[in-house]
C-alpha cells in the first residue's frame, strides 16, 4: 500500500539529485524563467492596477443614474428590468447606499477609515448601466436624457469619452497580458525542455537500465518532471520576489507623482492567493515542458 509513496520519495530524491548534478544549468534555467515571468508579472500587475484605477474613478460604468431619496423600490426594479431588455445595454445593476459607501471606503484604501461612523444614507442609491461593446455614444447620451426625465432619478452622470478610453486602455493591457502570457508560457516551456533534454542525455544509461529492470513510464519520467516543476516554480517565485521588491520601491513615487490618478485608489500588489497562483502557473509550465521533453527524448 505504501509502495507508491516510496516510489514518490525516490522520484523526488532522484529529481533533486539530478538538479544538484548540474547546478549551473539549473541556475541558468531558473534565472531565465524568472526573467520571462517577471515580464508577464509586470504586465499583469499594470493591468490589474489599471482596472483598480478605472473602477475607483467610476470609468467602468459609462452611465450612472442617481436615485431620489424616496424612490419607489418597485419602480426602480422595473426600470432596471426594462434597461436589461435593451440590446445596447450589457448590464444594469441597482446599487444601494450601503453598497455605495462600501465601495467608496474600498476605493479610498488606507484612508477608508475616514468614513467610519458615516450613515450610508448620505450617499444616494443608483442604477449603474454598462453598455454593450461598440454601442454608439449617441445612444448613451440619449439614454441618459431619457433616464433624467424619470421621477425616480435625481441626476444622471455620463462618463462619456473617458469611459471609452479607459475601456480601450484596459483592453490593450489585457491583450498585452494575454500576449505576454502566451509568449512567456512558450519561452518557459522551451527553457525547461532544453534543460530536461540535457538531463535525459546525461542520464540515458540510467534510463535504459531502469527500463530493463521494470521501471514504469511514470517512474522513469518522474524525476525529470519533478525537476521541471521545481524549475518552473522557483523561476516564478523568484520573479514574484523581484517584482515585489520593484513594486515596493517604485509605488510611493508613483502614488505621489500621479496623485491625481491614484488619489481614489492606492496601487496594490498581488494578493497572497494570486502570488500562489503565479507560482503554480510556473510549476505547470515546468511540468508541461518537462513532460514534453522527456516523452520525446527518453522514449527515443
Amino acid at each position, binding site marked *: 500500500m505504501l*509502495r*507508491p509513496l516510496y516510489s514518490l520519495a525516490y522520484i523526488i530524491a532522484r529529481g533533486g539529485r539530478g538538479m544538484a548534478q548540474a547546478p549551473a544549468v539549473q541556475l541558468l534555467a531558473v534565472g531565465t524563467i524568472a526573467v520571462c515571468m517577471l515580464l508577464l508579472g509586470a504586465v499583469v500587475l499594470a493591468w490589474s492596477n489599471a482596472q483598480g484605477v478605472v473602477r475607483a474613478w467610476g470609468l467602468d460604468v459609462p452611465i450612472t443614474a442617481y436615485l431620489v431619496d424616496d424612490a419607489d423600490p418597485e419602480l426602480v426594479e422595473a426600470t432596471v428590468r426594462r434597461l436589461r431588455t435593451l440590446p445596447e445595454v450589457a448590464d444594469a445593476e441597482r446599487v444601494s447606499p450601503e453598497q455605495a459607501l462600501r465601495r467608496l471606503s474600498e476605493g479610498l484604501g488606507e484612508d477608508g477609515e475616514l468614513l467610519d461612523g458615516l450613515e450610508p444614507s448620505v450617499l444616494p442609491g443608483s442604477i449603474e448601466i454598462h453598455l454593450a461593446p461598440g454601442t454608439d455614444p449617441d445612444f448613451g447620451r440619449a439614454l441618459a436624457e431619457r433616464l433624467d426625465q424619470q421621477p425616480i432619478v435625481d441626476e444622471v452622470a455620463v462618463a462619456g469619452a473617458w469611459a471609452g478610453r479607459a475601456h480601450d486602455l484596459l483592453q490593450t493591457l489585457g491583450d498585452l497580458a494575454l500576449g505576454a502570457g502566451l509568449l512567456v508560457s512558450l519561452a518557459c516551456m522551451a527553457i525547461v525542455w532544453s534543460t530536461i533534454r540535457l538531463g535525459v542525455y546525461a542520464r540515458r544509461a540510467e534510463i535504459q537500465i531502469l527500463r530493463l*529492470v*521494470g521501471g*514504469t*513510464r511514470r517512474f522513469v519520467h518522474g524525476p525529470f518532471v519533478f525537476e521541471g516543476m521545481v524549475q518552473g516554480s522557483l523561476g516564478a517565485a523568484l520573479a514574484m520576489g523581484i517584482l515585489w521588491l520593484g513594486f515596493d520601491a517604485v509605488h510611493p513615487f508613483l502614488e505621489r507623482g500621479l496623485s491625481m490618478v491614484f488619489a481614489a485608489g492606492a496601487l496594490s500588489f498581488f494578493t497572497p492567493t494570486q502570488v500562489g497562483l503565479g507560482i503554480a502557473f510556473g510549476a505547470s509550465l515546468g511540468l508541461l515542458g518537462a513532460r514534453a521533453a522527456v516523452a520525446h527524448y527518453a522514449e527515443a
Partner: protein
Amino acid sequence: MAIIELTNVTMNYGRGPRRRSALRGVSIGVPEGAFSVLLGPSGAGKSTLLKLVLAMERPEEGTIRVAGRDIHRLRKGSIPYLRRNVGVVFQDFKLLLDATPMENVALALQVLGMPRREVRERAASALCRVELDPRIRRPARCLSGGEQQRVAIARAVAGDPAILLADEPTGNLDPRLTQEIVDVLEGIRRRGTTVLLATHDPLVLDLAPLTQQIHLEHGRVVTLTDPTELSEDDIPEILPASWAGPAEAVA
C-alpha cells in the same frame, strides 16, 4: 511446463533490399527451472530472441509466451511488470559506472517501490549471492570485468525474477572468470530461477551444468535437446515465485 515458449517466431530487421532475417520460424520451449544455453555464432539471432522474450522487440510472426502469457498482447504499460519477472544480464554489463555495486543493485529494487531499508537489505543479499562484498564503496568503473558482471547479475536477480536472461555474459571474460560466472548463474538456478544463457562460446557448454541446449544458426534452430531429458537433480529445490504481473496485463 515451459516457462518460455516460442512458436513459429519470425523476426526481420530493415526494409527492402536491406531486409535481414534474424529469426525464421523458431519454436522452442524452455522448461521451468532449467539452465538453458542458447548457442550460436554472431548474427545467429540469439540476442534477438532474448529481446523478444523481454518485449523489447515484437515478432513479425508467431507467439511468445512467458509463464503462460502471450507477452506481445500485453499493453505497453504492462511491459515493466513483465520485466520485473525477467532479469537480464548483458555482455557490456550496463552498469552505472559512477555508482557503487550497492547503488547499482538498489536501482532494480527502487523500481519495485520498496522502502530504503528493505532495498539495502535485499541489495546486500543479492550481492552476497554473487559472492561480492556489499560494503564495496568503489564505483563500478573501478571493478574488474568479472566483478562488474557479478554486480549486473546481482541487479538482475535482486527482485527474485522467475527468469534470468543472460546475453553473452562471459563474452568479455577469461576462462577462469567465465567458470566463475557460470557457477554464479547455476547457483541462481538452484534457488529457483530459470536461466537462459546466450553465447557464441562452445566452452560454456563444457562449464555449464547443462539441462537444455538450443543451437541457433542463421535464425533457425539447428538442434534442441529434449527438455524431458532433465534429470531429477536438475529440478530446483525452490520453485520460482508466482507470476506477479497485474491481472489486467493481457489486453
